[in-house]
């Protein structure tokens, strides 16, 4: 134990004296967080998969049609939820990008479209997923107009609209007699067409031409709100970018400490460590302890900086420490696994940079997961990057409780253990000093 602590203290001292490493561990992640916070915005998408929780409160034919349309979209994975609370929880936990609530009166509102009525959709989005949210809003507008077209193409619905229109005109005090007579004639003609089944195809719900032609009335409204912890939520864009910056800081630690063993070999000091009266596991764990302490320090440093300099509110500091600890442990395991593979510092640093960059990309650190192909999204489950961001966000602004955060914590700890075991197994093969 004493020897392990000595190794950890020595490694931290070396880190503090290596300006390049210190830059990548502290300054670089800060710069990343500030940069992304400044330019934070959405994007465009083509092939993607967005997990969309859907609560259909109406259950009428139009809302069912909308759900079916959503399900046919290749970029959407529709997840029906029993109530709004369940859907919001999924969004907060990062299990869905947004919750779509189809209101109970969605179908009924279709009857009032000719009187200036609107069909509303309630979209509750994850504030950390702007790009996906923008894409969802566009898709919902398109499919909403298709629902409007279906409403128009349905004979009984159209006749209900016409009847409603007639009644409204009869009650309108401001309408002139001449204008009322002409509009009633028009509605009678449309009613006649509807009764004989002669409505144009576009109006019967093929839907594709819904957005064509001159300016259409705003029959579909997609109301967008953010799902956030009611007490704090993401107080600003920095609340979202700082967890991402922290993850980049962790990767800086991985690169620095993964090269540590190769550095010891180059110096010849690995021979002293390997011949010291302590098991090899203690050498590796001592190094892991230093990596853990530095990683934890990075996250907490960024959190404090975010709080003091950028006004970011942290929802639960205790959970943040837990999330930071689990993240630091996972990244320490990754560092030790990588350290055991490379013999020279240059190869260790180059390879680690490449590996962590790939893990960051796969974990959604550079490009939203929704923009990635399916196999990469599956792989993201193995990247500590995504789990770490989710856990830290959970404590900062997602308002997660311990139970909600536990899956992320367990995955991070498991990844850390796997990395340590792999590192130890590799270190025991052959002469550890060379």
């Amino acid at each position, binding site marked *: 134990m004493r020897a392990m602590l000595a190794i950890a203290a020595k490694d931290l001292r070396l880190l503090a004296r290596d300006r390049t490493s210190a830059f990548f561990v502290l300054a670089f992640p800060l710069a990343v967080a500030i940069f992304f916070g400044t330019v934070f915005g959405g994007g465009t998408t083509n092939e993607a998969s967005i997990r969309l929780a859907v609560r259909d409160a109406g259950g009428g034919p139009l809302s069912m049609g909308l759900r079916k349309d959503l399900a046919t979209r290749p970029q959407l994975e529709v997840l029906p939820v029993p109530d709004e609370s369940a859907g919001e929880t999924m969004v907060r936990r990062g299990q869905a990008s947004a919750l779509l609530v189809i209101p109970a009166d969605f179908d009924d509102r279709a009857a009032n479209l000719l009187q200036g009525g609107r069909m509303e959709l309630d979209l509750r989005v994850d504030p950390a997923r702007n790009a996906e949210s923008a894409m969802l809003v566009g898709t919902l507008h398109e499919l909403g107009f298709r629902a409007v077209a279906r409403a128009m193409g349905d004979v009984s619905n159209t006749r209900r609209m016409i009847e409603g229109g007639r009644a409204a005109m009869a009650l309108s005090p401001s309408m002139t007699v001449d204008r009322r007579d002409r509009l009633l004639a028009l509605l009678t003609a449309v009613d006649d067409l509807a009764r004989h089944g002669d409505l144009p195809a576009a109006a019967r719900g093929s839907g594709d031409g819904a957005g064509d032609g001159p300016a259409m009335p705003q029959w579909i409204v997609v109301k967008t709100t953010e799902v956030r912890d009611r007490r704090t939520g993401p107080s600003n864009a920095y609340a979202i970018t700082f967890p991402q910056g922290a993850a980049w800081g962790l990767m800086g630690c991985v690169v620095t400490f993964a090269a540590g063993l190769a550095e010891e070999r180059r110096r010849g000091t690995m021979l002293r460590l390997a011949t010291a*009266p302590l098991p090899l596991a203690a050498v590796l764990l001592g190094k892991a302890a230093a990596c853990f302490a530095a990683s934890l320090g990075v996250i907490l440093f960024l959190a404090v900086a975010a709080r003091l300099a950028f006004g970011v509110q942290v929802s639960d500091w205790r959970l943040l420490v837990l999330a930071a600890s689990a993240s630091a442990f996972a990244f320490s395991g990754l560092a030790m696994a990588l350290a055991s593979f490379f013999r020279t510092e240059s190869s260790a640093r180059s390879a680690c940079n490449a590996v962590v960059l790939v893990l960051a990309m796969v974990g959604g650190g550079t490009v939203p997961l929704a923009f990635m192909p399916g196999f990469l999204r599956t792989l993201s489950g193995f990247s500590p990057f995504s789990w770490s961001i989710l856990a830290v966000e959970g404590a900062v602004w997602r308002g997660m409780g311990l139970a909600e955060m536990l899956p992320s914590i367990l995955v991070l700890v498991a990844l850390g253990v796997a990395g340590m075991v792999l590192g130890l197994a590799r270190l025991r093969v052959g002469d550890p000093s060379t």
Partner: protein
Amino acid sequence: MLVLESLEKRFGGIQAVDGLSLSVRPGEIFGLLGPNGAGKSTTIGMAMGLLKPDAGRVRVGDLGQPRDPAVRRSIGVAPQAEAIYDELTGEENLRFFARLLGVTDPARAATEALDRVGLLPRARDRARTYSGGMRRRLNLAAAIVHRPPLLLLDEPTAGVDPQSRASLLELVRQLARDGAGVLYTTHYMEEAAKLCDRVGIMDRGKLLDSGTVDELLQRHGAETMVYVERNGHGTQRLATHDPLQEVSRALQAGDVTGLRVERPDLETVFLSLTGRSLRD
């Protein structure tokens, strides 16, 4: 103190050490002399427990084999490379190694070791500011910071200036006088001849012979050469086992303008044992 019995080690198709046996007694400096690639460092590696022998065994006193962490506390290692941390001070380096080796008072042990190698005035300076000789001394200090009874020194003077070398050799002699057994590898035959109580000649993984320098010279050395210069007769070259008698005889004959006696050295021994020069 250290017993190596019939050690064998193979790396792929290369037999690095082949049936090597030797022992180092307390207070003795045993020199392993051989060219690069002779198997000296592999032998040291097995002696320090870093490499597992394919056959044979290593014992450190009555303690057991050096792969046992407890036995390692009895061994001090000075690797060929300067195994120190450049960004730490001399004192921090030694404190760290002392902690690693389980010393109860690392600060005191570090100070004593620094004093012993003459680095106390530079204790607070970072190692990267040290000269080559000072770094070598710090490397040796790290080997003795826990006062081990057995020292394994792998070419500890490689690449240092003559003055620093003399200082390091004197330090090793002191350590042996204090009772430490020393296994010392080198490819400098003069160094082995000056420093070591016994020398083992190694080549291609085999220990060809061992003994005191005189014993080796007696067994394998050629005759001493006496060069006599006479007025008008040039230089006469005489091979003898009794150079004193030969010199006396030459002087009695008179007309001697110059005399030179060339004693065979370990180079000659190596040549005799392997058929090639140590410097090849």
